[in-house]
């Protein structure tokens, strides 16, 4: 138990100031266990440790990756069965059964990941619930191996190389030592660039992909890790209960884990431990209620989700922030990362040929070919629904093209996943500047460096350099949620430039900006182009675009209907017809102001 104290302080230090209350609570629980707890109290504490382990794992897939898995109870049950079968039926000891119990659910997670991890949130939740039901049916029906509804009795006590943690205090300490180890691993895993990647991935997966973050891989990792933790917890549960029955696979286990994670604080390692400690104690306070404690879990879960979704740890932090205002984190010294080495190539920076995409019979983009040279600014205009945003989505693989080719820096990247194209040198901005919901502007820009600098402090130093370039250095410690539109654009542009891209694709960057802010933005885009970046801008705002662009393409119904210098485009009859209908004599937008 005492192992938790240094861990807790270092973790909370990273997460924005220590929470002395949590450390104190941990110390009190430890003191209680060592000094006063009776055998029954120690047993409850041991069970709490087992759950804590399962919930720490669950925080990865559910809390950090943001996918509502309903298979954590199943993974836990499989761990228990693995220990029961390999230990009790085949006679192996803890040194074998424990790793096997971790391995079995992990392998299952990797196997089912292929169909389920691609699914949208609700499909994913139900698919994982379905897998749990199949596992439960299997445990009941496959009597020769699982013992059917009776389960497996006589699971041996834990014995590791001749050492046997006795019931009571030694067992509680053994379990909590594993919890501490698991917590440290989970904390280390969630640190560094992943700390920046996870919130963005939960809130806006497309933006995360466009920053070169491989979300699919992160989902797979967190899913497998969560299964491993659940398997370890299941193994310990089997040793403590001494029997394994289908109950370990039933939904109440999942309910308990989910409730602990939500009540403790979603995504927080400390929350997992706090939730596990609290919710294993809760039924003890309502003894004689039989399974009524689950009813209570339901009520508490509903109340927390509605009234305090930040959970116990979040509530403590809020209280602390209220009474002890946070000292602002010191800014790093801005560092220019210098140019990134890129392999030499000939031809345009970005080149697409015959790109096409249909949505249910409507040809949104129809055989579009274009190129952008180094340092060139290409404007893309066209009426609403002419396929401009779809074109950018195709060029970044957020939509899969039906046909056509894409070359970045002379390398063919057709059909490659978004994060690969991003790493190949394409950065993009979104119509709605998509900054992470929590965290400050510096964090947001540092996320752009997450895939380039593997070490967070140099990512922050480089990020501040690019914030300075876009004139937003004074916003570094401003929370993204309170930034006004003009500042959001600057931060987003800084993030895109921080990736030091070869090509920069911007979707209506001037929308919602004042004229002064537009002029400022135009200046920054010009200087980015001057440094060699190929820029593509989709824009409706002609007074902004025409003086800025070197060349303009006009789309209508998914096709290029005109291409030329801004001057030529302004006078092009096809462009006027597309905007105003064939008979109109005057252009829609009067041109440069």
């Amino acid at each position, binding site marked *: 138990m005492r192992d938790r104290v240094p861990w807790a302080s270092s973790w909370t230090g990273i997460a924005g100031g220590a929470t002395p209350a949590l450390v104190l609570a941990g110390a009190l629980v430890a003191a209680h266990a060592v000094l006063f707890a009776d055998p029954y109290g120690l047993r409850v504490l041991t069970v709490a440790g087992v759950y804590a382990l399962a919930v720490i794992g669950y925080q990865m897939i559910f809390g950090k990756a*943001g996918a*509502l898995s309903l298979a954590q109870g199943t993974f836990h049950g499989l761990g228990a069965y693995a220990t029961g079968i390999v230990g009790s039926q085949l006679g192996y000891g803890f040194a074998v059964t424990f790793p096997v119990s971790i391995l079995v659910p992990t392998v299952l997670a990797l196997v*089912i990941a*292929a*169909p*389920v991890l*691609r*699914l*949208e*949130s*609700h*499909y994913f*939740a*139900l*698919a994982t*619930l*379905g*897998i749990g*039901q*199949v596992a439960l*049916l*299997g445990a*009941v*029906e496959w009597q020769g191996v699982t013992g059917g509804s009776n389960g497996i009795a006589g699971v041996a006590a834990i014995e590791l190389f001749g050492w046997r943690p006795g019931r009571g205090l030694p067992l509680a300490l053994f379990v909590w030592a594993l919890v501490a180890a698991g917590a440290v691993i989970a904390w280390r895993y969630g640190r560094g660039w992943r700390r920046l990647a996870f919130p963005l991935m939960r809130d806006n997966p497309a933006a995360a992909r466009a920053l070169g973050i491989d979300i699919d891989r992160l989902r797979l990792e967190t899913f497998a890790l969560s299964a491993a933790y659940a398997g370890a917890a299941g193994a310990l549960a089997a040793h403590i209960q001494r029997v394994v029955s289908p109950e370990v696979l*039933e*939904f109440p286990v999942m*309910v308990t884990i*989910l409730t602990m994670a*939500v009540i403790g604080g979603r995504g927080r390692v400390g929350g997992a431990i706090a939730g596990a400690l609290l919710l294993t104690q809760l039924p003890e306070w309502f003894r004689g209620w*039989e*399974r*009524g404690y*689950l*009813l209570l*879990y*339901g*009520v508490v*879960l*509903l109340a927390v*989700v*509605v009234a305090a*979704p930040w959970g116990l740890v979040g509530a403590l932090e809020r209280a602390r922030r209220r009474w002890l205002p946070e000292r602002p984190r010191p800014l790093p010294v801005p560092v220019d990362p210098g140019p990134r080495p890129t392999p030499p190539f000939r031809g345009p920076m970005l080149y697409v040929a015959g790109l096409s995409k249909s949505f249910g019979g409507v040809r949104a983009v129809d055989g579009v070919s274009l190129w952008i040279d180094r340092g060139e600014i290409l404007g893309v205009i066209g009426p609403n629904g002419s396929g401009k945003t779809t074109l950018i989505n195709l060029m970044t693989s957020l939509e899969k093209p039906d046909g056509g080719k894409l070359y970045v820096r002379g390398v063919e990247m057709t059909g490659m996943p978004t994060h690969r194209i991003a790493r190949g040198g394409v950065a993009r901005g979104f119509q709605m500047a998509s900054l992470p919901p929590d965290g400050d502007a510096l964090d947001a820009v540092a996320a752009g460096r997450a895939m380039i600098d593997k070490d967070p402090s140099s990512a922050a130093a480089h990020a501040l350099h690019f914030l300075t370039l876009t004139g937003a250095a004074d916003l570094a410690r401003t929370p993204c949620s309170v930034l006004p539109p003009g500042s959001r654009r600057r931060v987003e542009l800084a993030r895109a430039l921080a990736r030091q891209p070869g090509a920069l694709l911007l979707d209506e960057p001037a929308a919602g900006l004042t004229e002064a802010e537009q002029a400022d933005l135009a200046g920054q885009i010009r200087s980015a182009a001057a440094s060699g970046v190929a820029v593509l801008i989709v824009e409706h705002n002609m007074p902004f675009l025409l003086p800025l662009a070197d060349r303009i393409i006009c789309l209508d119904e998914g096709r290029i209907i005109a291409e030329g210098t801004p001057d030529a485009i302004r006078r092009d009859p096809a462009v006027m017809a597309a905007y105003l209908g064939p008979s109109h004599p005057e252009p829609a937008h009067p041109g440069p102001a």
Partner: protein
Amino acid sequence: MIVAQLLVNGLALGAAYALVALGFVLVLNATGAVNFAQGDLVMAGGFLAVALAGSLPVPGIVLLPLVMGLMALLGLAVSLLAYLPLRNRPPVSVFISTIAVGIILQNGVILLFGPEPKAAPALFGATTVSLGGLVIPEQSIAVIAVAGLLILGQHWLFARTQLGRRLRATAQDPEMARACGIPVTAMIALTFAVGAALAGAAGLLLSNQFFVTPSSGAGLILKAYIAVTIGGWGSVAGAVTGALLIAAFEVVASATVSYSAATAALYLAVLVILTFRPQGLFGEAAGARA
């Protein structure tokens, strides 16, 4: 002969499943939210019928309006407590809050009735009818008829009445509906009530022949979900079709192998479908709001 027997059984089961899926898809369309408690609402409806039958010794058909009315009230409560406070939060909040509602229903029922399976009274009687040499339980025919009428009634309510137009407008575009003066919040609460009433009816219909246990909810929500997935996310007609398909599969597979194997095969089949067509067999009808 056996085929005809299976057909009747499958149709009765499918008709009841269709009510479950219908309630689920109506709420989905109105709110974009997935109501995980739908299966537990069915279970609660079944136990409500059991409880009412204990004090009112009348046939199920008399209890039906009572069960549906009380369940509609429960549906209102669910929308007030678990949906409306969370409507502007990420969808995962509503998943969790409706899971919490399911937990409360399931364990509340265990506290009140115990964990054993119970049976609700038959709609009319427990006799069988002979039809051209075929022996059919009267209950099966009654279930098909009652469920069919309820599905038609729901269709009539939504397609032909002023209220239905408002409900549909709310489902299609809540902002626009509000701009047109439709009380959107009340419409959403009403949709939850209709969904819960249909779940209650399904509970009463299912829990005579197939019994009801407090833990039935998980299986039922999965089937509703699968029906909606097969039928096209958000499609009302597709949900009914999907429910009939699932029931047919279950009846045939149970007759040839075992019920457990049938259920396992069903879930695995859906995983395979989702692997190759993540948008469902017939495409998505609802937008990406969920």
